């Protein structure tokens, strides 16, 4: 047996599993996306038609799809920097020599990540309640008028972003914390001796050393934020006035609520292409910024 053959044999079980659970479903989904599979096709497969790229073309003329896309981009472009900023800020605070009760805060800030999303979303719904919510109560004590957090189409998305950032920043914080602890103290000391202040040390020592971690975290966070679904599903059901419908939520409704699996598969592929493109851009930027 040649080494190449042995290698293929060894990898075969894993390849089989990947083929059965990944490539075949993806191929079927791709095939579905060029048909008009719906409940009529479910009743009688003779009602299934090949429609070529019509699902994709129709999608481009569906206002709700564009709105969902806009909502998702808005959510990601505001939410990702906020989330990464919050994670980095929290990690820096926890890593600073001045921090006390570090173990407690590390656990407390990480806690939202491991709680059940549905349960905390319901609690946040109470917090954000227009008339009885704690947040509006606090605002009223400061002299602000009550905000209709989940009922105003312009404010519902910021409310969802606030919730998502709170729920997710702890995860990246732990990754940043590990990376920060990996930066040799000697580098900072050397910079101090050269007369660098706190900001200069952060800008020229910490940040470059965090480069690879930052890239990883931003790819993971963007991928996660593009998959916005459960938050609007639990908190607003896509409303008010569809201002919190995300691409994934739109796909879910098309596929599992209205059973238009053809259209839903097309949405899935569009989302995949978008995320693929965003990741390519990120990689290119990362290569430019930090040449190896």
């Amino acid at each position, binding site marked *: 047996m040649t080494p190449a053959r042995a290698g293929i044999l060894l990898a075969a079980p894993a390849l089989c599993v990947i083929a059965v659970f990944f490539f075949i479903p993806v191929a079927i989904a791709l095939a579905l996306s060029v048909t008009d599979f719906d*409940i009529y096709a*479910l009743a009688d497969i003779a009602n299934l038609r090949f429609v070529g790229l019509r699902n994709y073309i129709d999608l481009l003329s569906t206002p709700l799809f564009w709105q969902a896309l806009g909502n998702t981009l808005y959510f990601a472009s505001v939410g990702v920097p906020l989330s990464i900023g919050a994670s980095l800020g929290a990690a820096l605070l926890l890593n600073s020599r001045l921090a006390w009760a570090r173990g407690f805060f590390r656990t407390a800030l990480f806690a939202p990540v491991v709680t059940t999303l549905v349960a905390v979303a319901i609690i946040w*719904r109470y917090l954000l309640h227009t008339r009885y919510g704690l947040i509006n109560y606090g605002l009223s004590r400061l002299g602000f008028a009550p905000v209709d957090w989940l009922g105003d*189409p312009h404010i519902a998305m910021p409310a969802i972003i606030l919730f998502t950032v709170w729920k997710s920043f702890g995860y990246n914080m732990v990754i940043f914390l590990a990376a920060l602890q990996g930066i040799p103290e000697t580098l900072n000391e050397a910079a101090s001796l050269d007369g660098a202040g706190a900001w200069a040390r952060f800008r020229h020592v910490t940040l470059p050393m965090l480069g690879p971690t930052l890239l990883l975290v931003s790819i993971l966070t963007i991928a996660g934020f593009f998959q916005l679904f459960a938050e609007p599903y639990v908190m607003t059901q896509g409303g008010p006035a569809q201002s919190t419908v995300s691409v994934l939520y739109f796909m879910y409704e098309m596929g599992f609520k209205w059973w238009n699996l053809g259209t839903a598969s097309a949405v899935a592929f569009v989302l995949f292409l978008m995320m693929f493109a965003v990741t390519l851009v990120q990689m290119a930027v990362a290569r430019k910024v930090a040449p190896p």
Partner: protein
Amino acid sequence: MMQRALGGLGILCAACISAGCGASDTRSVLHFWAMGREGEVVQELLPEFERLHPGIHVEVEQLPWSEAHQKLLTAVAGDSTPDLCQLGNSWIPEFVALKALAPLQQRIAASATITPADYFSGIWDSNVADAAIYGVPWYVDTRLLFYRTDLIAEAGFTAPPTSWGEWLRVLSAIKERAYGERYGILLPLNEYDPLIALALQQSQPMLRDNGTHGNFASAEFERTFGFYVDMFRKRYAPSVRESEISNVWTEFGRGYFAFYISGPWNIGEFRRRLPAALDGKWMTAPLPGPDGPGASIAGGSSLAVFRGSKHLDAAWQLIEFLSQPAVQQRFHALTGDLPPRRSSWDAPEIAADAFSRAFRDQLERVKPRPKVAEWERIATEMQLMTERVVRGDLTVHDGAVELDARTDAILAKRRQLLSEGAVL
């Protein structure tokens, strides 16, 4: 030796188990899917059925309402349907389009227990598709007014409104007297049923040409739509979604609103949850119509048999059993669900209940929703369009026209299949 002994023991055990199973398995097993509270309570009625039919054992599987539709569709797709199930009657057109249900008209014609004339006609009609009948109504659901008698008395009215004109007068009087946070009516922006109920009061249907086109730009629907939207514009109704009302019962008790359009399940809920101080201060009333008492939605659940069932006779026997007025009366006592047969309403506990009286009256004037598989999606578009018009993005007329365009797009495949001669 030891191994052989163990092996022998194993065989013995297996024999015991299979014998045990065999003894109880001479009866044919009927799989019955039922939802929520009904699925729980129906099990109390089954011992009697099994006593009367010793050859049948009923296995009830309880589905939560939120999962039921999805689970039933998956069962149809995967060919693993039960023998019979509880089916919301608005889902019937969809499962008929899926060719999943067994037609029942011949069994009904031959039945001594089930007499169609005894059923409220709108409710019965919701089970009919192209002269075939696909379900037998089990309990009914319709939407009408729950209202605070004390609040409308304060506004100077002694009786609930019966027409839209009177209704507007009451709402306007409540608004004039409202100090602080009080509205005339609660119409959650994420619900479509109240608008559908009012639209069914018109003689023009919401879909035309055998359910292939929207008919929302008709003068009659526009009138309904305008009336509905006006309730928000005049601030009779707050522009809120249900998730923004933390608790409907508490708010009703506090007098945040005086009218609420809801269904029979809320009789029990309001009784349980409203404080004792509100006893005698709330009541139900039939839905006001454009000119005098109007129609409402023929909702509720039916019992339907799946085409793939191997126990069609046994399934039908269970439906007949559950349709007997005496059994329906017991079911009402257990659940509070309102029976679909007029004779079941003769029982003194139901007939004497003041809160149910308006439902008894309303049930004589109920109409089924348009019978197309795509209806729920169209209804969702109605709700979204209402939200947009209430927020002022569109006028009532433009909203109705846009609604027609969206409905026509949703019905495209149905139109195509019908034009090719398909029977849906």
